[in-house]
Each structure stands twice: as C-alpha cells, then as structure tokens.
C-alpha cells in the first residue's frame, strides 16, 4: 500500500483511546473504589454496609426469656408457643437497647431497658389470624367472630377476646 499515513493515524487514535481508558479506569477504581473486586464486580464495602444496618427485632423467645423467664415458661406447650413474642408485641429495640451479638449471650445484664414494651389488647390483633376465611387452611383454628360472640353470649367490644382468652395460654 502506498499511502498508509491515514491508517496509522486511525490506529494510533484507537490505541490512544484504549490506553486512556485503561489507565483512567485503573486510577479511578484504585482511588474511588478500593474494595472493588473483593467478592465480585462490585464494591466489597457495599456488603459490609449492608451488614452494619441496625437490627431491630431480637431472636424470638430466646431474647425475651432471660428477663421474662416466667412468661416464656408459661408459654410453652400452649397453642401459641411457636409464635415469636415480637409478632404480637413490638420489636425488641423499642424495649431494650442491645448490641445484637449480645442476643446470643442471653445475659440480661447486657440489655438496658429503654422503654415500655407495647402490650396489645385490641380484638383486631386476634381477628387478623383467627377470623374465619375460605383462603385460610382448614386445619387452622378460626371462627366467625360475630357467630362466636353470639354463641358465647358476649357483647362485642374493642378488647373482647381478652375477657375469656389469655394470649399466652389461649385454649379454654
């Protein structure tokens, strides 16, 4: 080929752009995202940021047990025994301050009380699970609330269920 200057210019420009990109990328990744590539094509720090988020709920009955031993003991063998305390009450963090690792040490001295744990009394909490519905599994205990109250000859009110049922030992 006689006239090749234009080709060399083209090649050189392409190579120059490539080199610019490579050098630029290496510098940027090294300075802005030093943890990039630690576990994959993303910042390793992002994983740690996710881990560091605040834990609000405890670990279930094993968190409540150390201080409320009697309540949790009464709870066992009863119909609601498999339910987590926080499901009906409130997340653990509303009641005690804890460093989440301490949950496993289950040492009450590590928990510092910060507030009153919410105690729900409303009938609506019971109804959410126990109001009868075709979509609920047949073997799940459910009643038509209106019929049930008529049968028991009890007036409906905001906390009517608690009149007969103890949520920690609900079967009568």
């Amino acid at each position, binding site marked *: 080929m006689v006239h090749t200057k234009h080709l060399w210019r083209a090649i050189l420009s392409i190579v120059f752009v490539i080199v610019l990109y490579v050098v630029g990328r290496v510098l940027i990744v090294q300075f802005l995202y030093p943890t990039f*590539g630690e576990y994959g094509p993303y910042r*390793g720090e*992002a994983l740690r940021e996710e881990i560091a988020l605040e834990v609000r709920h405890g670990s279930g009955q094993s968190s409540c047990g150390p201080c409320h031993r009697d309540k949790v003991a009464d709870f066992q063998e009863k119909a*609601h025994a498999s339910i987590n305390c926080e499901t009906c009450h409130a997340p653990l963090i509303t009641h005690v301050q804890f460093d989440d690792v301490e949950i496993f040490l289950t040492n009450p001295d590590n928990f510092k009380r910060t507030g009153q744990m919410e105690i729900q009394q409303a009938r609506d909490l019971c109804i*959410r699970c126990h109001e009868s519905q*075709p*979509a609920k599994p047949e073997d799940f205990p459910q009643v038509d609330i209106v019929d049930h109250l008529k049968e028991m000859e009890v007036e409906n009110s905001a906390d009517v269920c608690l009149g007969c049922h103890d949520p920690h030992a609900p079967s009568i």
Partner: protein
Amino acid sequence: MKIISRRHFLRDALTIILTGASAMLLPFIPGRKMAAVASSRVRPEPGLTGYNPRAHRYSYIMDLHRCIGCGSCVQACNRENNVPGRFFRTWVERYQAGAVSARASIDSPSGGLFGFPSATAGVSGVSKAYFVPKMCNHCSEAPCVQVCPFGASFKSPDGVVLVDKERCMACGYCVQACPYAARWINPITRVADKCTWCYHRTTKGLQPACVQACPTQTRRFGDLRDPYDSIKKVLEEQRVGVLQPHLLTKPNCYYLGLDKEVR
C-alpha cells in the same frame, strides 16, 4: 477509490484487530489492581465483621399450605427495615379461584399488612382459595443484576441480591426488569430498594424478620452450605415450585403447594 489487494486488506485488518484485542490482556499483568478484578480471588481481611460470605448459600421456602394471611411478616419487615408507606419489601396476595377455566381473583389490600377482610365484594363461587406471600426471589440469574447500568445491583457470594446504595442512581431499570415486581425506588433514601433477606440479621446468625414473625412456619430460611440445615432436607425431599419458571431467572425462593393460578 484505490484498490487494495485481498492480502493487504487482511494484513492491515488483522493488525488493527490484534492491536486492539491485546488490550484485553492488560488485566492479567500480575501485580496490577486490575489483576484482582480479573481473578476475583482477593481474600478479604477479617475486617469489620469476620463474616465470610463464601461459606454460606442462603435459600428460602414458602409453604403455601400453611399461610393464614395474617400479615405479621409484612408488619415485621416494615418495622425492621424502615419501609415507607406505600411500598413493600414483602407482601401477601390472596387468590380465590372458582371455575377451572376462569382466572382466579387476586387481591392484596395494603399488601396484607392488616390481614384480609373476609368478605370480598364481587367474588362468588369460590371453590379454592389461598394466600401467597411474595418478595424478592434473589434469583441466580437475576434480571435486575444484569440490567443495572451502574453495577449497583449485585449478587453476593452467599446468594443474596443487594443494592449498592452509593452507586445506585435510581434510574429504575431494575424496577422494570424484575418480573416479580419486587423492586421499587425508595423516596426517602432515593435508591432502589427491595427485600435483602435481612442480610444485616442473617450474617449474624439471626433469621430474617419475616421468618421470625410468621406464626405458622410458612416462611423458612436456611443455609444450603450448612449440612444440618432443615430447609435443605425439604428442598431435597419435597416437591417445590418457583414463580414464573418460564422466565429462567432461577429464583432461590421455593414454594410448596404452588398452584397454576399463581402469577
């Protein structure tokens, strides 16, 4: 136009192509930062938490035979993760099916947060009804990870799809890409948000908030790398289904008792 011989054309074309392609060898020059990217074998320092993501592989089971639609899971998730008003990281749907040929009626009042009202206007002749809780499936071939233009959506080594809040630009492409409608843009943090399987809890040995809240053991979470894990047994021995299998996303959330009507 000047005529170039075939030989000369091939010679020049190959020269250009090979010069450009040799740039691909750059990551493999030992000792450079990009070598780490290429090999992805950088060992993390014991670091902040001492948690090794490569030692775990999380999975999730939903047993639809047990769900009572109480919404405790939705409530627990909202409280644990600061989920704002009209969005959900997890939600419960109710399906009411009648005739085999008709489509089931589906509803999800407030995502099931307050339970479900027993009477549904306009639905009659229901012969089959059930609840289906849903959330991010943490797919092995997640479309949301693939489409993210900024690489903010990623899958951790332990199988959890997460969002890098610093790199997310809230373009919403991942929200569109997810076939399970599990992602949304958080108006407060202004990045994409979704269920993370409570990564901040599971990395410390706790269960996700929804699993812990469920009163009927509908939701179960486990680690497939743990030889004593209970859900591993379920996956090996029982018949499980996944949502939208025809999309080949390989979800990691497995359903027991999945019906044909579930979308």
